[in-house]
């Protein structure tokens, strides 16, 4: 469904991605792991149009998207839970969810979709009239995830959705992500918690210094010496 071919990306003169290739098939959970500064966030920015590649291509459902602006890419069915959530601090939780339904095809159904999000995260319903800046860390992340679901995406990109959360909440976020696949939403997931991520994902890519250095089924990667040493602390 998503195909990234030989993408190079730069911030000014600094190159952050080198010849990255990656493929996501329908109804998969794909994990993207790598240490800090490896280029994971940059790759998600390339997919959602926040950064345009210097060379290479990104195609989604057979359509080239690497030259499109972010708002056109959301329209096509990709949504993004950005690093740190990036909810709108001076809007209420409910207004944040409404913003997620901004594309016109989703706006019409926003009231119904909000109810569906409240079923996944009942806490958000209790907090719906509160400004996002007053929410706790966990509620903040739930809001960011809920907001991304509001556009009824076909592919959802997650950038460290459980960062800084208590273990109980981390487990809840992982369960939610797994349940998305059952609803037919394809997932590309970046996580710090490598073991847990490889356990729920189908396939994974390992990024190091802006390059894909390993890829394959999660079960295989969990057995690999390099992954064990570098990411699982064994």
């Amino acid at each position, binding site marked *: 469904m998503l195909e990234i071919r030989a993408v190079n990306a730069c911030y000014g003169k600094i190159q952050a991605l080198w010849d990255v290739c990656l493929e996501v098939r329908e109804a998969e959970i794909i994990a993207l792991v790598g240490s800090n500064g490896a280029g994971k966030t940059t790759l998600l920015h390339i997919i*959602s*149009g*926040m950064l345009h590649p210097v060379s290479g291509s990104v195609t989604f459902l057979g359509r080239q998207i690497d030259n499109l*602006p*972010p*708002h056109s*890419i*959301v*329209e096509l069915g990709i*949504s*993004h839970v*950005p690093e740190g959530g*990036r*909810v*709108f*601090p*001076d*809007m209420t939780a409910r*207004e944040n969810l*409404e*913003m*997620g339904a*901004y*594309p016109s095809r*989703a*706006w019409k159904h926003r009231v119904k979709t909000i109810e569906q999000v409240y079923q996944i995260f009942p806490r958000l319903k209790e907090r719906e009239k509160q400004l996002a800046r007053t929410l706790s860390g966990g509620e903040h992340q739930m809001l960011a995830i809920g*907001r991304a679901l509001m*556009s009824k995406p076909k592919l959802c990109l997650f950038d460290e959705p459980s960062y800084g959360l208590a273990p109980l909440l981390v487990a809840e976020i992982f369960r939610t992500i797994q349940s998305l696949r059952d609803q037919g939403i394809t997932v590309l997931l970046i996580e710090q918690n490598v073991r847990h991520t490889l356990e729920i994902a189908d396939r994974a890519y390992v990024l190091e210094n802006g390059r894909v250095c390993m890829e394959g089924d999660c079960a295989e990667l969990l057995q690999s010496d390099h992954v064990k040493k570098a990411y699982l602390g064994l």
Partner: protein
Amino acid sequence: MLVTFLDIVIAGLLLGGLYALIAMGLSLQYGVARVLNISHGEFIMLGALTTWAFYTAFDINPLAALAICGPLAFILGFIIHRTLYKRLLNSSGSLALFEGNSMLASFGLMFIVQNLALMFWGPEIRGYSYLAFPVDLAGAVFGANRLVTLGFAILIGLTFYFFLTRTRIGKAIRAAAQDPAAAGIMGVDINNVLAICFGLGAAMAAIAGMLISMSYPVHTGMGLEYTIIAIIVVVLGGLGSIPGSFIGGLLLGLIGSIVTYFEPGLALAAYYVIFILLLLVKPTGLMGKS
């Protein structure tokens, strides 16, 4: 004594309503579109002189001129953003550089608009008389045109508040003000929203100019003073806060009215003093965030 006090307060609110309107327009342009628009006052001047021209040449009611000036200014502002500022934004690289570049560009725009208007209308001071009959408010007497001005400022302020909080595009504007990149991945066409904000700011300036022309003499060089007042109010209220601009405008109007009561020539000087004190003591303004 009481009547004098009431006199000052009501006069302050009348002036403040106008300031609020001007500042809300600039707040959209600076707080959301990041253009510290030095040419803001020129749109006020255009609104004022067009209204004057319509009234004296074609006998068109100034309040009806609003229906022409407002949309025209919106379109003009929208086009200016789409052609000039959007390009600057793309070529500037960073937002900090863009703020500097766009301010310089707006300086240039100020001279262009002012000189074109000067060629067209000349430097004479103009005025007309409309709704100038006195109205007695609990002993204090005001021109009806001043009260209409205040009414309009409040009406536009409220309409605008509902627009921002209740409509889809209004919410997109608030989201873009808080985090433009995040608004983009929600599906908001940022360039479009910024151009709309710039256009709305220009429309508010033109409407303010129309209201000013009903109570004060107008001329092609009148713009800059209002630009400066708008900047002071926007900083007073807190950068990017529309309610802050509204309240800051009313507050500065009250201050202006009190100072004018004691020494009419010192109002503008008092604004500068407040501006400098504010920058020293609370640079984030009344309702701004750090």
